[in-house]
């Protein structure tokens, strides 16, 4: 892959060595990438569960935690871009529910064509994303608060409208909608690789990582995302279209919410009014564990993906290890703390400021 760090593509012509600089080999340069800490933490957790449980490395086991990680991962990658751009989106989780519910209601209740319903859901998601961005930029309010309000509103609307239209809080009968199977090929199917039956969500996840990394490291838009997140005022002064960048980022996150909403809907062929609520923090956790700064301007898509991998492995690994489920949250908290500490330690050793 050519999508490595910008530091790794340094000028091949040997530059004159500077006596003020302790020489840094390619390994040290690699160690300075934001995602290195997450990589070490991920390897540690992988090793841990591989050794302590039998199932973790079995084909069925791998496919479970990869699927779990992929759903968090797609969102985490989008949320990481947004965080690099200096914003939060707490409505991202509820958005996966909203889009699923829109498609569910429109197809099962009103008999709309699935593809059209999906387009409508996408349009709604993008509109909400753009309006988040516009409110944030026009008012100067922190996105944390604006999207928290959006989150509440979506949560209420999801529940009330679903109940109003279907009389229940669950969409049933998706499986019998015409063309359901056609869509399922793209969003809900499985394929076999090395004897493992993998969900198609994993492909979408890998695609998201590649595109996001490419955009962040190798395009103008990526440069601008880092800039608006690092110093909004300066970005404005050098003429970066700050508004457009932020709108793009919020729309990307909302779009990712739609994608995950579809992946979940066409996997289990049902969606509930509560879908996605409480997930928004998991995405942020994944991004931070993956090396993104909460304050913006620093991070990577690969890191966020690794954060999601850590989360997915831990979540399913705890099941494989058959630990008492009452302790689940405590284990997760401990793992989170451990992961960020490992991350910090590795990065400090590599000479990266945190």
């Amino acid at each position, binding site marked *: 892959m050519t999508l490595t760090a910008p530091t790794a593509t340094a000028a091949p012509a040997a530059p004159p060595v500077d006596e003020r600089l302790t020489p840094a080999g390619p390994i040290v340069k690699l160690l300075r990438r934001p995602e290195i800490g997450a990589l070490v933490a991920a390897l540690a957790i992988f090793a841990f569960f591989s050794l302590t449980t039998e199932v973790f490395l079995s084909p069925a*086991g791998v496919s*479970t935690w990869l699927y779990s990680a992929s759903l968090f991962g797609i969102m985490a990658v989008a949320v990481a871009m947004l965080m690099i751009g200096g914003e939060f989106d707490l409505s991202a989780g509820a958005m996966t529910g909203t889009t699923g519910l829109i498609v569910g209601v429109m197809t099962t209740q009103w008999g709309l064509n699935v593809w059209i319903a999906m387009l409508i859901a996408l349009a709604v998601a993008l509109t909400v994303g753009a309006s988040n961005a516009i409110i944030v930029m026009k008012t100067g309010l922190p996105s944390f608060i604006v999207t928290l309000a959006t989150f509440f509103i979506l*949560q209420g609307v999801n*529940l009330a409208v679903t109940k109003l239209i279907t009389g229940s809080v*669950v969409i049933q009968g998706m499986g019998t909608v015409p063309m359901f199977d056609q869509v399922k090929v793209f969003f809900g199917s499985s394929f076999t690789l090395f004897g493992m039956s993998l969900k198609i969500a994993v492909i979408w996840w890998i695609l998201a990582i590649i595109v996001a990394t490419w955009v962040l490291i190798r395009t103008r838009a990526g440069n601008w995302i880092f800039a608006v997140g690092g110093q909004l005022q300066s970005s404005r002064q050098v003429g970066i279209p700050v508004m457009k960048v932020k709108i793009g980022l919020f729309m990307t996150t909302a779009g990712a919410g739609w994608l995950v909403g579809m992946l979940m809907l066409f996997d289990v062929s049902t*969606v*509930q009014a509560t879908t996605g609520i409480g997930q928004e923090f998991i995405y942020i956790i994944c991004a931070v564990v993956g090396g993104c700064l909460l304050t913006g301007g620093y991070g990577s898509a690969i890191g966020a993906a690794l954060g999601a991998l850590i989360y997915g492995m831990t979540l399913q690994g705890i099941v494989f290890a058959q630990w*008492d489920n009452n302790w689940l949250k405590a284990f997760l908290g401990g793992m989170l703390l451990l992961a960020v500490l490992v991350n910090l330690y590795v990065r400090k050793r590599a000479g990266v400021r945190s």
Partner: protein
Amino acid sequence: GCSGTGQESTTDTTTSTDAATGTIAVVTHSTPGDNFWDVVKSGAEQAGADLGMNVTYQGDGDPVKQSQLIDAAIATDPDGLIVSMANPDGVRSAVEKAVAAGIPVITINAGLDQSAEFGAETHVGQSEFIAGQGAGEQLADAGASNVICVIHEAGNVSLEERCAGAADTLGTVTNLQVDVANIADAKNTISSMLLSDPSIDGVLTLNPGIAVAAAQANTEAGGTALLATFDVSADVTALIEDGSILFAVDQQPYSQGYLPVVFLTLQLRNGDVVGGGQPVYSGPGFVTKDNAAQVAEFAVKGTR
């Protein structure tokens, strides 16, 4: 131990039993800390301990996550699987996968209608809707007509089903949303509701903690409404005894956890298939002034 004691004692008994041993996985749609499902869990674990089976318990209210948990359980190749199906569509493929893998499946609590269709051997317990209908009937008999149903977790499928069941027999029921994480404020909200509409003459709560709060709210707001609740605790039985609460619906969750483990163990060790394709009802029982004292004893132990 005599009550749900977690992993250590389970493994202890496992090693001390001479009979064939095995693993049974329970995957429900519960959220952590939910009172009802906690008792189901206790029942299943106790059965495991009694029978020398290794019982694992997991739960998640989101169908995608519940399916993932079932998949993870299938990956560990258990000797039996127990699933609650609040959202049958959502877990269908996972359950069918288990059946295809030759794992005997028993469904519990919700999903009676789909149980056989998906290939489960039997169903234990009955749906929340039926329990709700029962509660509605009893309230109507006691003379309540304008009832509020207090939902302590917004959008929770089981809770919505209970209220829908009550509405089915009572005509209409107004749902009131409160947060179980803040019982003091839930009490406030119930008071507010009683104040704002004096014609309310019945309150149905779905959690023992909320029931205690509702009893206090009722007293503060004048105390004319009839109270009923799902699930019991020592506090609830005390309130039933002194007449503050009319009755508690007891779906006997303990047996919803205990029985399927027994059935699957019998099948594993003796080839028995209990139920013969018919469901096994676990309730609902009603705790009233008459039998509150007996139930209180068990409620303290967390098995009712």
